[in-house]
């Protein structure tokens, strides 16, 4: 009981600080979300109740964007974690001998995602890009990376290549923190390396796996800059993520109230997902 009060007192300054910083934009977003607002009426929003939310939920483009973000977040998170885990386990002995190799492996993470998108835009360009050029030269064939048929795969690969190092780094730390004598005990107990991975190492890394999956999913779900600089909203809106949808609604179409309503929906969904994930991990830890 006193513990709870102490916690509240100790957390109060942080909460106040966050409220002060985030409070104003949040209040503004809430106000615009329930108002009929355009750039002309920014200073005098007119209350419109839940009309914006109704409009958003009735917009097929919103649902298309939500579906894109969900798929993109889930697929990239799973790919990155699987690749990152495999790399971490495979490269751990090398890293132990030569620590500096990690620095090379995490370079993609340091590049700004927007730059990454631009770079792929150059490299994959159908007429000017080096990759299609050489594929044509050597194989006489090249997929149209940015065409409606392939663009989803392309952005998934781009995102995965950039952020697998993040998962790798998390898993490497988790892998290295497993006490060596557990592996040795398992070996003496008659367990081959492959089985040792499934029975000892992976279970001990499981909390990290959940955390990595969750972080990468949220990050993928909110994806904006690399996709926007690579293909924009995509052919036929095929790469419109939630963030891109909000951005376009806001700036391109000037429907500020609707954009804010979508942003609030996105936030609430993310918050619920976070709460759920936290509950699940706490349950798993027990």
């Amino acid at each position, binding site marked *: 009981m006193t513990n709870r009060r102490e916690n509240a007192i100790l957390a109060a300054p942080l909460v106040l600080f966050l409220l002060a910083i985030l409070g104003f934009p949040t209040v503004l977003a809430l106000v615009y979300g329930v108002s009929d607002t355009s750039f002309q009426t920014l200073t005098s929003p007119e209350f419109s109740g839940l009309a914006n939310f109704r409009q958003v939920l009735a917009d097929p483009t919103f649902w298309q964007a939500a579906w894109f973000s969900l798929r993109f977040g889930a697929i990239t998170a799973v790919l990155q974690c699987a690749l990152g885990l495999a790399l971490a386990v495979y490269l751990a002995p090398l890293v132990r001998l030569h620590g500096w190799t990690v620095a090379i492996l995490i370079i993609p993470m340091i590049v700004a995602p927007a730059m990454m998108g631009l770079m792929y835009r150059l490299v994959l360009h159908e007429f000017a890009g080096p990759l299609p050029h050489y594929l044509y030269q050597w194989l006489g064939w090249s997929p149209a990376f940015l065409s409606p048929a392939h663009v989803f795969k392309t952005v998934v690969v781009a995102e995965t290549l950039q952020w697998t190092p993040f998962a790798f780094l998390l898993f490497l730390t988790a892998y290295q923190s497993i*006490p060596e*004598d*557990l592996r*040795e*005990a*398992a*070996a*003496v*107990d*008659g*367990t*081959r390396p492959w*089985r040792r991975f499934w*029975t*000892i190492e992976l*279970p*001990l890394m499981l909390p990290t796996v959940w955390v990595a999956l969750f972080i990468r999913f949220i990050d993928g779900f909110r994806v904006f800059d690399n996709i926007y600089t690579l293909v924009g909203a995509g052919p036929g809106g095929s790469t419109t993520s939630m963030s891109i949808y909000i951005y376009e609604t806001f700036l391109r179409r000037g429907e500020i109230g609707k954009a804010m309503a979508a942003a609030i929906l996105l936030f609430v969904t993310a918050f619920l997902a976070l709460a759920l994930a936290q509950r699940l991990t706490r349950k798993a830890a027990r």
Partner: protein
Amino acid sequence: MADLRLEHLSKRIGGHSVTHDVSLSVPDGAFCVFVGPSGCGKSTLLRLIAGLEEASAGRILVGGRDVTQVPAWDRDLAMVFQSYALYPHMTVRDNIAFALRSARRPEPEVAAKVAEAARILQLDSLLDRKPAQLSGGQRQRVAIGRAIVKQPKLFLFDEPLSNLDAELRVHMRLELARLHRQLGTTIVYVTHDQVEAMTLATQIVVLRDGRVEQVGSPLQLYDAPDNLFVAGFIGSPKMNLLAATRQGDRLVLPGCGGQSVPLPPLAALPAEGVPLHLGLRPQAISATGAQSLDLVIEVVEHLGSETLVHARAPGSAELVTALVTGGRTLSPGQPFTAGFGTAALYLFDPTGQRLR
């Protein structure tokens, strides 16, 4: 169950020789203890046997089978680690069952063997706990349980008692002795504690700097140490080791005010004037004795029925320790006559080798 043979086993780590040409034969059913000071390479030797380290040279034979190149998981041994190395994400039951499940034994057999091990080690009520919920002694028993279920050819123990408090250590020592009698499996046991070695072993291997100094039964090592190191290491309190030189048929002790004692029976006499070491166990000293040294008591430790006396010749450097029965009236400053027989004397040459 199997015997163990090491043939010219060596291990170099980074150009530094950690195990040096170790040859050893441990008979089937023995309780063999590797003992030596910290850092002498005991763990390395044990890990070589387990297959956790690769030998640089030499052979390891378990039950006559050469396992030098066999990976750890195919050697069919069991090891108890100093840290216990329990799998933290598994219950006690799953920890104990782990080796059997790795060997893909049928589940009813696994359950039966786990129950049997739990009964022997009194772990029945703890089977559903995780290692984090156990005390040190309980973890230790789980680690032993994990080793005994698989009925291995050989048990390997690396300082299993060193993380326990003194009382529990004595208790577990008895438990281990009982377990060995009950199972009859060959045990190789590492410790830096010579008391543990003396009380548990049927065969002691004294190690120093990666070399075998002497192999023998506890009493063989106590009664007939081969060299200065073994003499000083085995036995508690430590053997007195005094500087000595031969003059005629007597040994002069410069560290004891130049007093002299007769030579013990020797096959060949050492050269006169060569610096020798004279060994005399504290237990061999009493108030009476054919020979004696005149000393003055410096410190007295009353143990009850026995008394530990530390004394030296006036103005001399070397302290002599004696363990005498009774001795309740002894106190510092009193003169003390340390009596002994010549048969109790050990003589070592300048390189530390025993002269016989």
